[in-house]
């Protein structure tokens, strides 16, 4: 049985649906995991100018997850073009740089520069980072800003654009739709949840920067819900991200509507989590006699709920 694992992101075809999550992956990991088997390579977000990142400690663990506040430590776009891209270009998998910028102009400029590099196959716009022109609120928290950012970047991009949304919003559907309208070719759902942990003995936050982003299996059920909601709101592909530890988690996201998944924190626990996830998906397809990954995407069988609506809002 040959399995068709191809996933389409705009004009780009990914060989399979499993890729790393930005910031939880680096060229050093090539010793641990076979990069040539990945659906794409997504390096750490890059900023235009070099920046030092946040105070340590930059990570702490929580129940079923971790908080990070690295602060996008970055050597700047120039070095990235010189060093990082060539380093990743050596592998078979498509390269999808992740951009973090301080305002829409900078996003647009960086998109222009990076998308015209021949080794760049698509771009992920990390719109979960704070908009310095809007009091530090993330771009992706506002539908109008999201729309404008995507339209501006789309105008200048030569490669497919993936908008990486923040989950810290009231309506992921609304932001997803705005990104699609702006011209996003795909969405990553989602970045980390803003979170905080305090050492009750010292009374100090466990993170140098006081707060940071929560990732890991703890957040997966919220992300699965958001993937489902976003998939109802848009017709572009969705990349699920947040808490994938294994193939079962990836499949859950794909059934909810994701065309692909990103694996981040899991690699810290299990260095081969990326390829193990892919192996799991293949084994599942064989076991269920599915030949194409398309047979999975969005395949959840929602139960008819009270009054025929899919979700009756009362929970507790």
């Amino acid at each position: 049985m040959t399995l068709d694992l191809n996933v389409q992101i705009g004009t780009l075809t990914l060989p399979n649906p499993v890729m790393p999550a930005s910031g939880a992956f680096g060229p050093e990991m090539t010793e641990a995991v076979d990069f040539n088997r990945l659906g794409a390579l997504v390096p750490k977000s890059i900023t235009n100018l070099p920046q030092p990142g946040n105070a340590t400690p930059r990570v702490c663990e929580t129940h079923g997850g971790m908080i990070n506040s690295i602060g996008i430590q970055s050597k700047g776009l120039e070095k990235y073009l010189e060093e990082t891209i060539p380093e990743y270009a050596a592998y078979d998998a498509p390269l999808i740089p992740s951009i973090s910028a301080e305002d829409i102009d900078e996003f647009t400029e960086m998109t222009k520069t990076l998308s015209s590099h021949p080794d760049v196959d698509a771009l992920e716009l990390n719109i979960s980072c704070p908009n310095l022109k809007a009091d530090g609120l993330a771009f992706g928290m506002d539908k109008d800003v999201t729309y404008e950012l995507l339209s501006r970047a789309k105008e200048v991009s030569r490669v497919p654009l993936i908008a990486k949304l923040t989950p810290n919003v009231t309506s992921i559907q609304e932001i997803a739709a705005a990104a699609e309208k702006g011209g996003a070719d795909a969405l990553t759902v989602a970045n980390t949840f803003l979170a905080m942990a305090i050492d009750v003995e010292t009374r100090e936050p466990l993170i140098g920067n006081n707060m940071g982003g929560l990732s890991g299996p703890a957040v997966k059920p919220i992300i699965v819900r958001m993937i489902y909601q976003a998939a109802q709101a848009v017709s572009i592909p969705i990349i699920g991200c947040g808490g994938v530890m294994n193939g079962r988690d990836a499949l859950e996201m794909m059934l909810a509507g994701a065309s692909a998944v990103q694996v981040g924190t899991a690699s810290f626990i299990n260095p081969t989590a990326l390829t193990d996830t892919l192996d799991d998906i293949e084994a599942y397809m064989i076991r269920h006699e599915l030949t194409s990954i398309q047979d999975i995407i969005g395949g959840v069988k929602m139960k008819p709920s009270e009054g025929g609506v899919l979700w009756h809002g009362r929970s507790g």
Partner: protein
Amino acid sequence: MKQHLLPVLKNIQVSQRYWLMVVDRTSMPENVDPGQFFHLRTTEALSPFLRRPLSVYRITETTLEFLYLVKGAGTVEMTKKETGDTLDVLGPLGQGFQLGSQKEILLTARGVGIATLAALAQKAVENGTGCTAILSARTKDDLLSGEMLEEMGVQVYRVTEEQGNSDVKAVEAQMREIIEQKDIDSLYTCGSRRLSLLNQRLLHEYGLQGEIALEEQMGCAMGACFSCVSPIQKDGKEHSVRVCYEGPVFPMEQVVIS
């Protein structure tokens, strides 16, 4: 930087707060250098969630030993491992100590910092390098593992809060005496901010070589996530390095101690 599943040969309490775990490493092809570390999965469940970094305490052809302080959830889980269980380790990781043509070295270890320096002492003795160690801890009980160093042929001085001879002043006097008497050419330290500052001061004053093993909160331990950064002074500039990748061992004069 590979994951290995190693059989636990022994896991015993060696003093009130310290445990020793011995694992079989015959299935592991990599060389392990003193100062390198492993990132350990302490439990199959994801609670505690992250791996834990531990230096290698003793290296033999067929085994690795870890000396660990039981501190929080992760090290408590480690104490539950029994002979025959499997230890999931990622490693060896990072850059170890540079031991070259030194003749006489002085180690200053605070607390469980001894775990990191012991492997260095072992190699020094094998190389025929003279090795002296000052071990500092809260109580004598915490220094029980000093005996292993003595058996190897390391001259060990012990200072404790209990005895009241572990303050920086007292240790400074002791270090000066040893440096001068033994004609020490290199200093190594681990485990204490204050002892690191003292070592740096004496390094400059006596014009010695030296290294410090750092500790930082880690995520991946593979150099990918930039959790574990520390500032380094080099070529007149401050650089940010990853303790897990460029370290954990750094030239003593470069380390910026805050």
